[in-house]
């Protein structure tokens, strides 16, 4: 039983095709950005691409991306990790305790350690005992919820600024600032020019108040790519998720690699928790994770189990999470126009490919969204907070046909299955 859609029919591509596709994807991203900029200008929803929004987006993206990265490590080795949410929770409380008492670095390490403990439990159940992956993940989540609540009460109750459900404020990680770039960029952004100002916002996002932990997260993503696709260790780990029988027949210790993968998975989710507690917020809070572990998994699926794709998916979800807090009622309302525009573009593409029925469907939906946009001023606040979750559902529902998960993902593996 796996978390991912049934996708065996997705066509596999050669390296040349991969490069073509990657270029096409980059083109789409750029086109999407242009479209976003246009929507901003037309709708007047300045917060859509303001540097403030982008900064919050980046901050919101990273925890999701870390969870997604954790999911990637585990699933590439063939283990489905639903327990990422719980491991992230462990990370938040680990960060809360260690950062408060011993500083930022200890906070990060402590969070990763706590997350890793959660991973160890999941690994014990799934790799050693062969328990169903999802069941074990659910159990880890329940335990993590209880443990974190208990520890929060034990550790933070008496402290000033804290309480039974939250930690005192935690020390802030170092922030990167490059004023001689960010200030001119800010000036450019204030002009609200189409596309130029939006690009300036992006520049500003990277040069003003950029948290060191965010940079660390980005490095981890790159590091994951290198470790899994450029080293012997990574090859063997991935073989456990593609064909454990073949791996075993060639002398790979499948159990060991699966175990390690799940431990790393937990540690990354834990680090995601540290990001939540120390960068997104000022401290630990019960219920902080709010489903990000699962959203991270969705980002991983969307990204076709590859680090770059996963990050793009996380950014998409991060954006929909950040937007409600940036003049949410107006900004999310403007998103309707964006969705309508995208649907019209899709309709055009389908028409060019002579798929009349698809084109018509996209056109109709596009009109619906356009109508919704034009007939309302804002979107009710409660609906804006739904945005990321609906985005996940839509993405999974439409993207499932082109995805290819690791061939042996979710299988309960027992030694001796090889020929």
């Amino acid at each position, binding site marked *: 039983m796996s978390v991912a859609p*049934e996708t065996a029919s997705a066509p596999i591509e050669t390296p040349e095709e991969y490069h073509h596709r990657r270029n096409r994807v980059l083109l789409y991203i750029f086109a999407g950005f242009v479209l976003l900029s246009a929507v901003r200008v037309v709708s007047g929803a300045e917060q859509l691409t303001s540097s403030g929004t982008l900064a919050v987006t980046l901050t919101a993206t990273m925890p999701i991306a870390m969870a997604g990265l954790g999911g990637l490590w585990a699933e590439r080795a063939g283990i489905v990790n639903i327990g990422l949410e719980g491991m992230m929770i462990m990370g938040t409380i680990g960060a809360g305790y260690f950062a408060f008492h011993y500083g930022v670095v200890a906070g990060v390490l402590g969070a990763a350690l706590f997350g890793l403990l959660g991973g160890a439990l999941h690994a014990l159940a799934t790799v050693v005992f062969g*328990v169903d992956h*999802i069941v074990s993940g*659910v159990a880890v989540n*329940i335990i*993590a919820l209880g443990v974190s609540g208990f520890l929060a009460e034990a550790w933070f109750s008496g402290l000033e600024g804290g309480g039974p459900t939250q930690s005192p404020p935690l020390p802030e990680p170092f922030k990167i600032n490059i004023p001689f770039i960010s200030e001119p960029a800010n000036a450019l952004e204030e002009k609200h020019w189409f596309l130029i100002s939006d690009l300036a916002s992006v520049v500003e996002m990277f040069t003003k108040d950029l948290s060191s932990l965010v940079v660390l997260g980005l490095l981890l993503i790159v590091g994951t790519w290198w470790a899994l696709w450029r080293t012997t260790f990574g090859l063997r780990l991935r073989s456990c998720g593609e064909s454990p029988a073949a791996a075993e027949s060639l002398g790979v210790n499948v159990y060991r690699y699966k175990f390690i993968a799940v431990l790393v998975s937990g540690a990354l989710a834990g680090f995601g928790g540290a990001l939540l507690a120390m960068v997104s917020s000022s401290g630990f809070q019960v219920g902080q994770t709010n489903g990000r572990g699962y959203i991270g998994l969705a980002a991983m699926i969307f990204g076709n189990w590859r680090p770059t794709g996963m990050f793009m998916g996380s950014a998409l979800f991060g954006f929909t999470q950040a937007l409600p807090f940036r003049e949410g009622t107006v900004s999310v309302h403007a998103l309707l126009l964006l969705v309508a525009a995208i649907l019209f573009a899709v309709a055009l593409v389908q028409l060019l490919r002579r798929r009349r029925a698809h084109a018509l469907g996209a056109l109709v939906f596009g009109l619906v969204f356009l109508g919704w946009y034009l007939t309302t001023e804002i979107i009710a606040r409660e*609906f804006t907070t739904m945005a990321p979750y609906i985005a996940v559902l839509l993405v*999974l529902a439409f993207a499932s046909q082109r995805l290819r998960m690791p061939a042996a993902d979710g299988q309960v593996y027992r030694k001796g299955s090889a020929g």
Partner: protein
Amino acid sequence: MSLVRRAAMGLAAPVLAFLVAGVVASVVLLISGDDVGAFWDVMFSMPKHRNIVSILNTSAVLYLSGVAAAIGFRMNLFNIGVEGQYQLAGLAAGAFAGEAWLPGPFNTVGAIVVAMITGALWAGIAGILRATRGVSEVISTIMLNAIAGSLIAYCILQIGVDTGNARNTKQIPEGARVGTIEVFGDSPTQLFGLSLLAIVVGIAFWVLLNRTRFGFDLRASGASETAAVASGVNVKRMVVIAMLMSGAVAGLVGLPVMFSDSFSYGSSFQTGLGFTGIAVALLGRNNPVGIAFGALVFAFLTEQATLLNILAGISPDIVKVTQGVILMAVVIAYEVVRRYRVRLEQASVAERLAESRPAPEQPKEPAT
């Protein structure tokens, strides 16, 4: 295998799990400096009458939640969305009953139907996504939980009425309320009338599973999808129907409290029952009788937990940890016992056959 031996094997896993959970809880308490002895005193203390009634009420609700999850589990579908389904259903039922379009008891019945339909539809979304687009129901139900939360907040704002500093749906009129059953004379709390739904649902679940053709198809699909397909089962259809049924039962979870105690849906509506229900279902191995025991155990633990704070100054979260550890330990133990049991049964059958009749030369699979 004899009945005694089978029973022993069946109980071995949960007993083992409780022991492990007990040890873990004690260790955690030791580390955090709490009084371990006091913990065990409270946990083993005999509940008073009013606590017993409370336990019964809670187990009924947990039972419903467990059965809802179990229907999905039987088909290898993980309906993590019970939480969102029963919340939405509670809102719908509360709003419906509050409007009092139907008189007296018809209102109650109508509300129950509305609850079941709401839960079914919400779960059905995940079922259809899974059957048609292959979207994992694990993620989709969790997303639907979150969406439900926002949706409920919006609806309460629109149609709720303020009562003091809370906002609830309109009060359910007298005629539609369900009375309580007196279990102990001296207890201030009584057994909620709709708690009996648990018994109805339990029996229906057992009958469905073991005596209907649909139930057979359901179990077969979960046990061996390949054999089910070869026998003519339409698996996609089964997925959707199973999710609909799961959601319908989930819709009942909030009703006993609402119709006998709070009389409206609002912020006091209990949360978290969905996840506990999943644990109860797994603990009870997804069968009607096992889930009942699981529900009683978890309800007992939850009830005792409320005393922990008052009597021993220990955070009730330790019980949540215990419950989680029980779940983990039990699923591990079940897996281990299951493998052992299979081997045992194979050996036992071979033994008994050898004793009863002289076996002729039985060529096994020719080794190729």
